[in-house]
């Protein structure tokens, strides 16, 4: 995805959209990786990231396709006082996970380059006050995997994981949102509706 974006001259326009103008973006699975400021287990020679979310993602966290799965998720952000929330069907396909929430730094996440096979996104200066506010917003954990899933990670990989590593599968930083799983492969529109509402409110706040 990053290679095709680079070959098509799309990397910088994407960075401008996400980091300079800081417009609302949601990424799923590989999209979450693309929006992360840091990623590990990347291919040899690394890969380009757009950045925008101050998190470190672990690619193919659960393993290969034979470890892909579907599980019911409780997503707190979908809960409202008026509606009874049904679980959301989370489809994880060779999925990444948010391994660590990073502290917000000026410029690149240089510390992260100390990780083996890690890559970081290049820094870009937000264009105005509104964009800067979103860029510096705290990273919110929007959803976690049920605990029993931690054991899904093969033991060798589990030992290699950062001790602070978690089981975070959805994060938001201001107006940028990322999920490990694929709501677009379900027939359930709730996350899309929730997201559109977020965008609508953000755009409304600008006027």
């Amino acid at each position, binding site marked *: 995805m990053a*290679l*095709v974006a680079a*070959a*098509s001259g799309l990397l910088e326009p994407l960075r401008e959209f996400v980091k300079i103008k800081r417009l609302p973006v949601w990424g799923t*699975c*590989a999209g979450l990786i693309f929006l992360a400021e840091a990623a590990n*287990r*990347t*291919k*040899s*020679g690394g890969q380009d990231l757009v950045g925008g979310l101050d998190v470190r993602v672990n*690619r*193919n966290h659960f*393993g*290969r*396709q*034979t*470890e*892909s*799965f*579907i*599980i019911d998720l409780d997503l707190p952000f979908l809960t409202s006082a008026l509606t009874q929330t049904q679980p959301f069907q989370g*489809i994880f*396909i*060779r999925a990444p996970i948010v391994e660590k929430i990073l502290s917000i730094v000026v410029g690149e996440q240089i510390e992260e380059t100390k990780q083996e096979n890690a890559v970081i996104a290049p820094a870009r200066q937000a264009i105005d006050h509104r964009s800067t506010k979103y860029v510096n917003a705290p990273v919110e954990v929007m959803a976690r995997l049920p605990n*029993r*899933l931690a054991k899904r990670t093969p033991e060798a990989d589990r030992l290699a994981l950062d001790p602070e590593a978690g089981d975070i599968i959805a994060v938001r930083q201001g107006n940028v949102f990322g999920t490990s799983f*694929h709501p677009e*492969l*379900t*027939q359930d529109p709730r996350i899309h509706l929730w997201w559109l509402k977020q965008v609508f409110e953000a755009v409304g706040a600008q006027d």
Partner: protein
Amino acid sequence: MANDSLPLTNDSASHGNEFTPSFTVKTGLARMLKGGVIMDVVNAEQAKIAEAAGACAVMALERVPADIRAQGGVARMSDPALIKEIQAAVTIPVMAKARIGHMILEALAVDYIDESEVLTPADSTYHVDKHPFRVPFVCGCRNLGEALRRINEGAAMIRTKGEAGTGDVSEAVRHARKVADDIVKAKKLADDELPLYAETLGCSVELLKETIKLGRLPVVTFAAGGIATPADAALMMQLGCDGVFVGSGIFKSGDAAQRAKAIVQATTHFRDAKVLAEVSTGLGEAMVGINCSDLSKEQKLAGRGW
């Protein structure tokens, strides 16, 4: 979304009940590959070249179809050592071909199994019952009936058969058009005419109805068989394919890395003539081709499978 009415696969006992590997998970990976190029590779070095060129997955095999044609003999599944070496070399999905040995491939945790006519068939009556496997399968087809029979057996992705190892795209074009024509014909039929048409095609009425509703095959459908140039790839995309497999076309050509990149670009920008002209320029020698019309029926691989 479109695939939810398709049959679910068996749950896997090895992981208990908390995970339900369903058909959605299998077709889901194929949906992530849409718009991409899957390249045949025979070693880790080629796999790295393919990954660096932007391939969305690689297909591990012992000999590319052009060599299987030239050398003859029984074409078998790859040595597991080779598959492991390729899996270690790249982070993109690794697929592998099998006619027998699919259980071995599942144990190796390949990401997709190609039940391929390129390899020598082991069972002249049945195709693999693909539902019980955690690994998804991709299968070849020449027409709608064959595609729906494979989906009914559990294939989570379909490709045209084309004529592998020739560098002649004409058979792939024929198969893609035949599937499309069969669907057009099906859409014109009244409900009570469908059982007879399904019988003619040799497929299930339910899957035929699903296909009519969607106006296309209910799983991701790639082009394969004879694709050797950026123009071939773009043509197959223009015919409505979701992506392309390139077999012998890349690593049997003069400059494999450049050709691989060019075919990826052509597949992404298949409607943009300027990009196609640019990436087609100065690619060096293409693979030595064989005209499909010069092949006898016995020499054609597409006839394998039923």
